[in-house]
C-alpha cells in the first residue's frame, strides 16, 4: 500500500498557513494589549483529517492513519464569565458607595466644621452676646450685639439649609440626566441591543464574534456601575440584561425597554442617588435634624424671651430674628439693671440646641466616614476581582513574545519541510531513471 506522493507538500503548507494565522492572532493581541475590555484571543489548532492506509505492512497487513497536518479550528477569546458576574456585582456596590460618599462629603463640606465660622461658633457667639447683655442689661450696644449675633446665627442656619437643599436637587438632577431617554442607560442599552443583533448573525454564520463580545461585555460592565445587572446568555448568542429592580429586562435580544421605574434597591449609582433623596434617606435625615436644631433654638429662646418672640420661624430655612434691638428683653421686670432673662438665655449654652447641633455634626461625620470606609473596602475587593479577570483575559506581552517566537519558528520549520519535500521530489523527477546517462 502506498501513500499519495504530494501529500507531504500539503502537510507542510497546512503548517505554514496555521502558523501564519496564529501569528496574526498574536499580532492582534499585541495591538490590543491596552484596549479597554479586550480579552486575549487564541488560535485553536487542530490536526487535519488523517488519510487511512488499510495495510501499511505487507507482512502483517496492519493498517495506519497518515497525519495530514494542521488547521485552525477557530479563534477563541479567553474569558471567565463567572469572574465577569463577580466584577459587575462589586462594581455596582462600589459605584453606589462612591456616589453616596461623594454626596455626603459635599453635605459635610457645607457644614464647614470644625471651624471658626461654622454654626457651632455662631451659636457660641450668640450665647456670648447674651452674657454681654447680662453684664450691661441697659446698653443699646449690647442689645444691638444680641440682635446681630442672632441674625448671623439665623443666616448661617438658612444658608446651610439652602446648601443641603441644593445638594438634594443636584442628586435628583443627576438621576434624571442618567435615566433620561438620551442618557447613559438608554445609550448603553441601545448599543447592547445592536451588538446582540450583530452577534446573533455572526453566530448563525458560525463565526465567533470575539471582538463584538468584548465590546458588549464592556458596555455591560459600564451598566453595572449604574445599577445591579444580571446577564442571561441565550443560545442564539444574545444576552438578556436585567437592570436594577426594573420590572422588564432592559435589553432583550434587539429590544430595549427604557425608561422604567427604579427604586433605591436597584443598587449601583442610580440606586444610591434614589436612596440619598428617598424619604428617611441620609440627606433628608440631615435636613430634618438641622430643622430640629433650629426649632429647638427658636422655642428655647422664645420661651425665655417672654415680651415678644425673639426668633420667628421654626425650620432652618425660615428661622429669622423677629425683634429690633430696642425690643430685646434683658429682665423679666423691665428694670434697667435686671438681667435675669439675659442670664437665663446665656445659660442655654451647652444645652439641648448645642447638643443637637454637635450631635448632627457627629452624625454627618459618621455617615461620611462609614460611606468612605465602605468605598475603600469595596474598592479593594473590586481591584482583586479585576486583577483575577485581567489575569485570565489580559494580554501579557511576555507571553505574546514567546508565542511570537514559537509560531515564527513553526513557520520557518514548515517552510523547511516544504523545501525538503521539494528536494525529494526533485530527486525523483530530475534525477531518477537516468542511470547510465
Amino acid at each position, binding site marked *: 500500500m502506498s501513500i499519495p506522493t504530494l501529500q507531504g507538500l500539503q502537510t507542510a503548507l497546512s503548517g505554514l498557513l496555521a502558523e501564519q494565522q496564529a501569528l496574526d492572532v498574536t499580532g492582534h493581541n499585541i495591538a490590543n494589549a491596552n484596549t479597554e475590555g479586550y480579552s486575549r484571543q487564541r488560535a485553536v489548532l487542530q490536526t487535519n483529517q488523517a488519510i487511512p492506509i488499510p495495510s501499511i505492512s505487507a507482512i502483517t497487513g496492519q493498517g495506519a492513519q497518515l497525519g495530514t497536518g494542521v488547521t485552525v479550528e477557530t479563534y477563541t477569546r479567553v474569558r471567565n464569565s463567572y469572574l465577569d458576574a463577580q466584577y459587575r456585582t462589586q462594581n455596582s456596590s462600589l459605584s453606589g458607595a462612591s456616589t453616596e460618599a461623594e454626596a455626603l462629603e459635599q453635605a459635610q463640606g457645607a457644614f464647614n466644621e470644625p471651624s471658626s465660622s461654622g454654626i457651632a461658633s455662631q451659636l457660641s457667639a450668640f450665647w456670648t452676646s447674651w452674657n454681654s447683655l447680662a453684664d450691661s442689661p441697659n446698653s443699646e450696644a449690647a442689645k444691638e450685639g444680641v440682635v446681630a449675633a442672632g441674625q448671623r446665627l439665623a443666616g448661617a442656619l438658612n444658608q446651610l439649609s439652602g446648601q443641603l437643599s441644593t445638594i438634594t436637587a443636584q442628586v435628583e438632577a443627576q438621576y434624571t440626566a442618567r435615566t433620561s431617554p438620551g442618557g447613559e442607560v438608554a445609550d448603553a442599552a441601545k448599543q447592547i441591543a445592536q451588538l446582540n443583533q450583530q452577534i446573533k448573525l455572526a453566530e448563525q454564520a458560525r463565526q465567533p464574534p470575539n471582538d463584538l463580545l468584548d465590546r458588549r461585555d464592556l458596555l455591560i460592565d459600564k451598566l453595572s456601575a449604574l445599577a445591579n445587572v444580571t446577564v442571561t446568555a441565550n443560545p442564539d448568542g444574545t444576552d438578556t440584561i436585567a437592570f436594577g429592580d426594573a420590572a422588564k429586562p432592559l435589553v432583550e435580544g434587539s429590544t430595549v425597554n427604557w425608561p422604567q421605574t427604579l427604586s433605591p434597591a436597584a443598587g449601583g449609582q442610580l440606586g444610591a442617588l434614589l436612596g440619598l433623596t428617598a424619604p428617611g434617606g441620609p440627606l433628608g435625615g440631615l435636613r430634618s435634624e438641622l430643622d430640629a436644631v433650629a426649632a429647638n433654638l427658636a422655642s428655647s429662646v422664645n420661651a425665655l424671651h417672654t415680651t415678644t418672640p425673639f426668633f420667628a420661624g421654626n425650620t432652618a430655612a425660615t428661622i429669622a430674628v423677629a425683634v429690633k434691638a430696642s425690643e430685646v428683653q434683658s429682665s423679666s421686670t423691665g428694670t434697667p439693671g435686671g438681667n435675669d432673662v439675659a442670664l437665663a438665655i446665656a445659660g442655654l449654652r451647652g444645652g439641648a440646641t448645642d447638643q443637637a447641633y454637635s450631635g448632627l455634626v457627629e452624625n454627618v461625620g459618621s455617615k461620611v466616614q462609614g460611606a*468612605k470606609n465602605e468605598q475603600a473596602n469595596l474598592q479593594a475587593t473590586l481591584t482583586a476581582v479585576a486583577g483575577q479577570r485581567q489575569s485570565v483575559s489580559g494580554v501579557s506581552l511576555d507571553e505574546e513574545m514567546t508565542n511570537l517566537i514559537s509560531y515564527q519558528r513553526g513557520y520557518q520549520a514548515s517552510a523547511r519541510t516544504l523545501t525538503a519535500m521539494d528536494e525529494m521530489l526533485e530527486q525523483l523527477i530530475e534525477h531518477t531513471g537516468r542511470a547510465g546517462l
Partner: protein
Amino acid sequence: MYRITGTMLTGSTLNDINSALAKLQRSSEELSSGRQILAPSDNPYGASRSLDLQSQLDGIGSYTTSVNDGISWTQTSEGALAGISGALQRVRALLVSAGNGTHSQADLSAMAGEVSQLTESIKQAANTQYAGQYVFSGTLTTTRPYEPGENDEYQGNAGAVSRAIGAGATVAVSSDLSSVLGNGAGAGDGKTLDVLRTIVKHLTEGTAAGRQALTSTDLKALSSNIEGLLGLQSSNGSATVQLQTAVGRLETLQSSVTGALSSTLDTDVAKATIAYSTQQAAYQAALHASASIVQESLLNFLK
C-alpha cells in the same frame, strides 16, 4: 497559574503610588493646618466633642468677663461704703464731743453744719456710678438712689444686680444700701439719714433734751446704723472674695478645657512629622521601584 500582565502591573503600581501619595498629602495637611480633625468624618466623636469644648471655652471667657465686671462693681461699692463709713465715724466723734457740755451753741451750730455736709456727702457716695449705672439703686440702675438736698427718700428698688460666674451660678454684686440709709426724717425709720437729720435738729435747737439725746439715743441709733453698714461692707467684701475665687476657678477650668480641646483637635506634631517622613520614604521607594519594574519586559532581552 495566576498570570500577571503588563496592565495589571501598571494598574497596581499606579494604585500603590496613589495611596502612598494620599497618605503623604494627609500628613502634610495635618502638619500645615495644625489640626488632626479637618472634617467631621476624620473623627466624628472628636469633631462633635471639639465643638462642645470650644463652646464651653467661649462660655468660660464670657463668665470671666462677667466676673471681672462684678469685681469692679463690688470694688466701686466698697469705695463708696468706706466713704460713708468714714463720714459716720466723723459724726460719731462729733456727737461724743458735743456731749461733754463744754461747747457753746455756736460750736454746736457749726457741728450741725458739718453733719449736714457729711449727710450730703453720704448721699453723694450713695449715688456712686459704675459704668454709668448707679450701684446702690437695686435694679433701677439708671435712677439716682438719693436726690441731693432735703428729700431723703430712696428712689431705687429692692432688686439685686447679679453677675454670672458659671453655668447657672450667679453672685449678687449690689449692696442694699437703702436698708442702712433709709428714707430720711419723713419716714422716721431710725435709719442713718433719719438719725443724721435728727442729730442736726438737736444740734441746731440746742435744747437740754436735745443735747441729752445727742449722746444717748442719737449716738445709740448712729452706732446701730454703723454696725448695719459694717455688715453691708462685710457682705460686699465677701462677694468680692467669691468673685475673685471664681476667677481662679475659671482660669483652672479654662486651662483644662483648652488642654482637652487641643488634644482632641490639634496635630501631635512629633507624631505627624515622623509619619510624614516615613510616608515620604515609602512614596519615594514606590516611585523608584515602579520606575525600574514597569520598564522591564521580555522585549528588552530579545535580539
